[in-house]
C-alpha cells in the first residue's frame, strides 16, 4: 500500500491557521492548487475529526473551522491543531478491534486466543468477525507501537497494556505528572508527543475521578500554534540524521518570485507543480523562537554546500542514500562552524554589532536590561552607566538580528556597523511617515501631497 501522505492536510491547516479566514473557498483552493470540491471534502473531514476529538456539542461543530482554530488561541492549552496527527485513515472494523484489544488488556494479561474470543463476542454485528491471524497481526502492531507488552513467562504468550508507569502512581502523583506534562508540552520542543500523552493522562485522571484534568488550570501566552504542524516532519528528519541518510523532498519556497503582482501566486503556498526537487544530507533541525518556525539545516552538493530549508515548505519527504560517517562528521563540523554566530540560521559573514540600550526613565525595574539579558543570546553588556548600557554581539549578517533590535524602539541606538545604523535611520524616517497625521497635509497644501 502506498504510504499515506499528510502533506495536503498539513498545508491546508497551516494556511487555515495563518490566514484565518482571509480567503473564500475558491481563493483558498486556488492557492493550494486543489479544486473547490477537494477543499469542501477536506473541510468536512477536518470538522469531523475536530468534532470527535474535542467532543463538542453539535452547535459547536457547525462553527466554521477557522473560528474553532481561533477560539483555541488563549483559553485552552489543548491545541486543536493536534488533530492533524489523529487523521490517519483507519477502517472502522480495525479501530473497533484494536480498541477492544487494548481495553481487554488494561488490567489483566491474556493470550491471543483469549483475545480472539473476547473480540468475537464484542464486535458489533455489522462488522466482520476477526480471525486468529488478524488478531496476531494486531497484537504485533500494538506491541511495536509500545501500547502493549509481552508478559514474561511460559507459553502460551500473554500480553498486557503497557501502562505501568501510570497505574503505579497514586492519585496525587498522577496529578503532579499531568501538570508536569502539561507544562513541558506547552513550553518545550518537540511538543506533539507531549500533547498526545497529556490527552491520555487526562483520561486516566477522569477514570480515577480526579478533578484536575477537567479544566485548564494553566494558560500559556503567546504560543506559536503552527509549530505543531512543522513537527510532522521532525521525526523522519531526525531518524535520517541518526541513520546518516540523505533526504529528498519537493520544496516550496515561501518567498515569491519577483512577480508578486500576479494574483494567483500566493507566496506561501505555491502549487505543487512549482515545487523544487531537492536532495540534501540533513544535519540539524533548528527551532526559531522569534517566529515559531522550524528549519532543516544540511549539506547539499550544490554550489554553496550549505542548505537551509523552512519546514513549512517541505513536502513528499523521503529518505534516500547512505553517507559515510566521515562525510557526516565533516559536514556537521562545517555546519556548526558556520552557524555558530547565526542569530537564527544566517550563514553570512560575521559582523560585530554594537548598540546602546537606554534604561527606562523613572521606572522601578529596568525591563530593557531584563529583556536584553533574557533574549540577547551570546551578546554581552560591555559598559554601563545610569542612563544606558552598551551591548555587543558578533552575528552572521545583520538581517536576522535587525527586527529584534528594532522591537526596542527608541530604547535602542545602533552604533556599529555604520551600514546598519544608516538602515535604522532610513526605516525610522519611513515609519514616522506612516503615522504622519493627516491634519498636517491639510495644513500644508503647497507640499504637493494634498
Amino acid at each position: 500500500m502506498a504510504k499515506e501522505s499528510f502533506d495536503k492536510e498539513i498545508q491546508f491547516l497551516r494556511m487555515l491557521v495563518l490566514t484565518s479566514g482571509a480567503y473564500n473557498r475558491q481563493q483558498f483552493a486556488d492557492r493550494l492548487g486543489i479544486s473547490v470540491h477537494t477543499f469542501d471534502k477536506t473541510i468536512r473531514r477536518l470538522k469531523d475529526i475536530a468534532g470527535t476529538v474535542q467532543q463538542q456539542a453539535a452547535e459547536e461543530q457547525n462553527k466554521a473551522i477557522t473560528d474553532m482554530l481561533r477560539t483555541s488561541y488563549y483559553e485552552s492549552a489543548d491545541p486543536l491543531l493536534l488533530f492533524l496527527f489523529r487523521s490517519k485513515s483507519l477502517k472502522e472494523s480495525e479501530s473497533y478491534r484494536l480498541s477492544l484489544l487494548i481495553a481487554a488488556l488494561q488490567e489483566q494479561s491474556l493470550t491471543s486466543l483469549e483475545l480472539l474470543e473476547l473480540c468475537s463476542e464484542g464486535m458489533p454485528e455489522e462488522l466482520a468477525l476477526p480471525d486468529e491471524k488478524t488478531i496476531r497481526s494486531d497484537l504485533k502492531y500494538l506491541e511495536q507501537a509500545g501500547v502493549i507488552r509481552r508478559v514474561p513467562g511460559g507459553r502460551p504468550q500473554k500480553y498486557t497494556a503497557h501502562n505501568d508507569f501510570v497505574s503505579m502512581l497514586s492519585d496525587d502523583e498522577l496529578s503532579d505528572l499531568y501538570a508536569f506534562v502539561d507544562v513541558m508540552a506547552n513550553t518545550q520542543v518537540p511538543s506533539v508527543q507531549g500533547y498526545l500523552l497529556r490527552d491520555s493522562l487526562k483520561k486516566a485522571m477522569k477514570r480515577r475521578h480526579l478533578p484536575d484534568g477537567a479544566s485548564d488550570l494553566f494558560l500559556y501566552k503567546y504560543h506559536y500554534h503552527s509549530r505543531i504542524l512543522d513537527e510532522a516532519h521532525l521525526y523522519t528528519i531526525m531518524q535520517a540524521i541518526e541513520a546518516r541518510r540523505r533526504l529528498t523532498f519537493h520544496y516550496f519556497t515561501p518567498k515569491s518570485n519577483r512577480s508578486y503582482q500576479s494574483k494567483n501566486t500566493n507566496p506561501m503556498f505555491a502549487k505543487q507543480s512549482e515545487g523544487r526537487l531537492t536532495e540534501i544530507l540533513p544535519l540539524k533541525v533548528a527551532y526559531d523562537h522569534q517566529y515559531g518556525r522550524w528549519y532543516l539545516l544540511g549539506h547539499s552538493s550544490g554550489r554553496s554546500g550549505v542548505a537551509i530549508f523552512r519546514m513549512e515548505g517541505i513536502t513528499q519527504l523521503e529518505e534516500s542514500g547512505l553517507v559515510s560517517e566521515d562525510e557526516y562528521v565533516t559536514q556537521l563540523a562545517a555546519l556548526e562552524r558556520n552557524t555558530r554566530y547565526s542569530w537564527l540560521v544566517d550563514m553570512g559573514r560575521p559582523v560585530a554589532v554594537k548598540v546602546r540600550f537606554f534604561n527606562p526613565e523613572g521606572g522601578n525595574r529596568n525591563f530593557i536590561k531584563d529583556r536584553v539579558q533574557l533574549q540577547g543570546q551570546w551578546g554581552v553588556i560591555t559598559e554601563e552607566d545610569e542612563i544606558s548600557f552598551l551591548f555587543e554581539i558578533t552575528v552572521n549578517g545583520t538581517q536576522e538580528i535587525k527586527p529584534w533590535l528594532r522591537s526596542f524602539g527608541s530604547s535602542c541606538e545602533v552604533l556599529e556597523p555604520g551600514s546598519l545604523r544608516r538602515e535604522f535611520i532610513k526605516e525610522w524616517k519611513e515609519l514616522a511617515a506612516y503615522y504622519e497625521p493627516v491634519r498636517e497635509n491639510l495644513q500644508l497644501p503647497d507640499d504637493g501631497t494634498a
Partner: protein
Amino acid sequence: MNLFEKIFNYRMMAQLDEHGALAVTAQERRWLLMMLEHPDASSAIEPETLDRLRQCLCGSDEPSSGHFRTIIIEKAGSTVSSLYHPLMGTLRRMIVKKSGMQLLYTRKDGTLLPRQAGVPYKLEYSMVKKEWYLLWYNRRTRSLMTTRLRSIRLVEDMPVSEEFFNQAAAALASQLEKRTQHATIEIIPAYNRELSRILYALSCFDKQVQYDEPADTYAIKLTFLGDETEYVLSKLRFLGLRVRVTDHSYMKYRLREAAQKSLARYGYAPSAIETAQHNNGIMPAEAE
C-alpha cells in the same frame, strides 16, 4: 517513530475513551523520559516518584537509539532561569480544590503589601517573559489581579464556599472579556511577498485576516487584552515597515512617537520632535 500512527486516529481515540482504556505508545514514554531529564523535573515531581518513574520508563522500552535532543538547536529563545516555581503545586491544588487564599506579596517597586484575601483562578505562563503569573480575584477590590509568582512571599489556604469560588471565577472571566481590545494591522502591499513571515510573527495572537483581492491587500484584526498592548507594539516594531496600524489611535501614537524618538537618538530631530509635541496634547484625548 511516526506521529501519524493508527493508534492516534481520532475514531480509535473516541472508542478507547468509551471503554475507559488507556493507550500510551513507546514514543510518548520516550518523550516523557527525555523531559524528566530537565533540571526542573525535580521541582515538579516528588523525588521518590521521579525515581520510580525513571526506573519504570527506562526499563520498559528499547532505549531510544537517538540523541534526538542534540539534533535540535533552538535559536533566539530566552534564557530560562527556572521553568517551575515552588508555589505552583500548592496553587494548582488550591484551584482544583476551589479553595480561597490569603496572599502576601510584593509590588513591582518592591514594597510588601498587607495580606490580601482572594481566590486563585489560573496560572499563566508568559512564553516571552519566561515567567509564571497567578491570576486571582481580590476579595476587597473585587477585581482581577495578575501577580508574578516570584513576588509572592506567602500563600495560605482560606476556605470559601464553592458558590463564592464559582462566582469569583465567573467575575474574572467577564473582567478578562472586558479587557479585550482590537487593532487592525494592514500589510503594506509591497511586502506581500513576506506574507508568510508576517503571519507567522503574528500567529501568537488571536487574529482574523481579511483579504481584499482587487487591491491585493491584507488586513489583520488582532484581538488582545489591554495589558498586552506593549507586547503587540513591540511585535509591530519588530516587523517594521511591513505593517501599519490603521485603527487604534493609541498604538498609532506610540509607533509615531517611537519613530520620532529614535530619530532624535540619531540626531535627526527638531521638526519631528516639534510635531510630536504638537500632537502630544491631542493624542491622549483620541487614545482609547
